[in-house]
């Protein structure tokens, strides 16, 4: 089974403050983790994936296999970062074969106050 846990439904910070959105996962295989974002009145879109090791809009996320976590971080939050953030999991199963299923967490609503 593959499972994603986002413990915070809501997160509110002030502009310029650091922000961390938590994500933990469970998977019997080699995991691949993603963060998707949904801005107000827009469709769900990819923010970043762990294999790319990239920084998008100032956000970074490091896969910690020991803690089975993939927390999303940004040192200085901006008002335009206010959105719904979903952590998502796929990967290769230990049993071999393919896995095309992408499993999402319940999401964290981030509000950045002026």
């Amino acid at each position: 089974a593959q499972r994603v846990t986002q413990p915070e439904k809501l997160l509110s910070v002030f502009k310029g403050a650091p922000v961390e959105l938590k994500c933990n996962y469970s998977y019997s295989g080699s995991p691949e983790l993603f963060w998707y974002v949904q801005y107000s009145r827009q469709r769900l879109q990819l923010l970043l994936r762990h294999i790319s090791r990239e920084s998008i809009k100032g956000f970074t996320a490091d896969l910690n296999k020991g803690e089975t976590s993939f927390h999303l971080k940004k040192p200085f939050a901006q008002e335009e970062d206010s959105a719904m953030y979903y952590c998502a999991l796929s990967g290769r199963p230990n049993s071999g074969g393919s896995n095309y299923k992408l499993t999402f967490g319940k999401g964290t609503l981030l509000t950045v106050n002026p």
Partner: protein
Amino acid sequence: GAGVSQTPSNKVTEKGKYVELRCDPISGHTALYWYRQSLGQGPEFLIYFQGTGAADDSGLPNDRFFAVRPEGSVSTLKIQRTERGDSAVYLCASSLRRQGRAGELFFGEGSRLTVL
């Protein structure tokens, strides 16, 4: 536009009726996904198509739900004998095929289904 297109955007129906939701993926994307998103929840996987065939339908909740993709492009999600609990936003996504695992999913705006 070149994005994933879903119709209708809103559908209100009565309990017990039959509903069809349509998804037109990005041209050239061979993989197509259906998800269901209930209020306050994340997207819940329903079914995945690779080409015309359903490669993984493990998320379909029961046999009232069925999806087809006869020509490997447009897909239709069909719900028979709708129940109030089927009310949700149904999301479609498409992606380029990646060997063995999910690639970046491009989502449509969703079809909001309300069963009265």
